[in-house]
């Protein structure tokens, strides 16, 4: 599985420090934006529509009605079963990621209301070791799917990940089987699962729960794939075409149902829930 933590985002922010407050420069259109304006606009550039990366907690806040969210499995923390060490020990990398994000691992899962409808929601945190899936991410996604099945509440998972986490070796690989199996159970329970692919989603996450949604949504221009673009270029020894592995490319190739603007994601999900579980939404 390819971990591509250093993948270029579809649009990234450059900080421009000016004494009076914080301004940001959108790399999509080079415009200087007020950080506050960008935040109010859910991280979407008001000038060019570029979707900037946002944290897992922010993603959940965009979709869940204020004051209704409660997180579960937040007591799970990563271990170091391989005692993995490269240029840095895994434990040190974890500590760094924890300081940076305030999270114990790369996913948040919880319950809440989406326009009044109870849902189970998960969001991956790309800022935590590239959103990579180790044992904690796999376990929390599996628990979210199981909870959705037992509550008969739709499951929504927003993915952003470089793939499986190398530092947990074979255990990370097995999370692909575990999450896919949990989603299969949800499928058998007849409860809908909406997978939202955001920039970037790769490797073992794409090749397990992320591509198994009953309906698959993606954010505009999000990079999504199995192998990272660099690995593919090295393999085929050709330059990749413009737009390769973008959300729109996937849609064209029949792999994504809806490419949806972040500002319309919540209402799109609400309509989808109403189609698949009529009676749960009061229109």
């Amino acid at each position, binding site marked *: 599985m390819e971990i591509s933590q250093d993948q270029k985002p579809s649009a990234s922010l450059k900080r421009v420090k000016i004494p009076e407050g914080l301004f940001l420069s959108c790399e999509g259109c080079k415009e200087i934006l007020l950080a506050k304006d960008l935040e109010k606009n859910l991280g979407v550039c008001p000038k060019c529509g570029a979707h900037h990366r946002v944290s897992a907690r922010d993603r959940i806040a965009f979709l869940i009605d204020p004051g209704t969210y409660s997180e579960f499995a937040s007591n799970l*923390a990563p271990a170091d079963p391989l005692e993995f060490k490269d240029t840095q020990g895994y434990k040190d990398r974890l500590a760094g990621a924890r300081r940076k994000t305030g999270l114990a691992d790369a996913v948040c899962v919880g319950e809440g209301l989406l326009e009044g409808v109870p849902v189970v929601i998960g969001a991956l945190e790309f800022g935590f070791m590239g959103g990579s899936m*180790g044992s904690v991410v796999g376990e929390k996604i599996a628990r979210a799917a199981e909870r959705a099945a037992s509550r008969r509440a739709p499951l929504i998972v927003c993915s952003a990940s470089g793939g499986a986490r190398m530092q947990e070796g074979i255990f990370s*690989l097995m999370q692909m089987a575990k999450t896919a199996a949990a989603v299969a159970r949800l499928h058998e329970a007849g409860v809908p699962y909406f997978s939202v692919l955001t920039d970037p989603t790769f490797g073992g996450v794409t090749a397990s729960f992320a591509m198994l949604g009953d309906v698959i949504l993606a954010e505009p221009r999000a990079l999504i794939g199995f192998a990272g673009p660099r690995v*593919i270029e090295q393999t085929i020894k050709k330059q990749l075409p413009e737009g390769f592995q973008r959300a729109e490319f996937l849609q064209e190739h029949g792999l994504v149902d809806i490419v949806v603007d972040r500002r319309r994601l919540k209402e799109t999900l609400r309509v989808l829930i109403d189609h698949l579980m009529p009676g749960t939404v009061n229109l």
Partner: protein
Amino acid sequence: MPPEYLDFERPVAELDRQLEEILAGPPEDREEARFKVAALRAESERVLESIMTGLTPWQRVQIARHPSRPSTLNYLQSIFSDVIELKGDRRFADDQALVCALARIDKQSVAVIGHQKGRTTREKIARNFGMPNPEGYRKSIRTMKLAEKFRLPVVTFIDTPGAYPGLEAEERGQAEAIAASLFEMSRLRVPVIVAVTGEGGSGGALAIGVGDRILMLEHAVYSVISPEGCAAILWKGDPASKVADATAALRMTAGDLLSFGVIDEVLKEPPGGAHRDPDRMAATLKEAIVRHLGELKTASPEDRVEARYQKFRRMGVFKEKKTAVSAPAKPRRKKSRDKD
């Protein structure tokens, strides 16, 4: 097929050559040389044993990838009878990197699915070095569903560097094909036996690896990423010299995986590895498959599916604390700014 030798196998190459020379000679010389043959054989075994007991993880990877290592097609021939190969995913193409067949083992018809790397240059190209495209996994899913429909057990052989990282593989949904395979295998109602026979490379291996029993040959390897890929990502400056370190760090040998509880049984290989005595390896593998099939057949489909679910559900190592370990979610959206 002429035997090929890895660097650390060189000490036996000369003994093998002398043996072959005698055995190829006229029968009367052979009779005369029978003491020499016995001595050469004993010496060869002794040398092999000393090589094998001191194998580093990286040397094990090389044995797992040995050019003469028995393949899925070899096992189909040596373990099974009445083999009929099934081809194509009915959607796009036939993928020769993943072989599917109906076959018989111990009077029992089964579906067999396995990676095939190819041995000659021409075969390797035709079989894409054992790296399946999406149509390979879709053929495999089709075969598994066929097996389920007619209540045949499924036996899979894993031996791949990984799923193919190509442009067209992405266009046709490599990730979806693997995900769908994991999804379907987790709920197959028939017994599923998985044997990692060579190289278990990442998601492309696991895609046919969700079984009731996971067996692994002694010198096979199985990991989340290839040692080369791991070294390239984590040791950016000088990856080539760090491949052996990455191999050790990934803990990818059969012994490691057994101690982690990720596999159920390690199958002993003949002295020097499966390629030194393919028939003996096949016999060991056959015995294990037949034994596990016998055990699995007694359970009901519901119990089997439940047990398989729990088997993978339990995999993973993490700490479960008494209280939350993440900073609590703020009731209202707070500003998120990247630190870098």
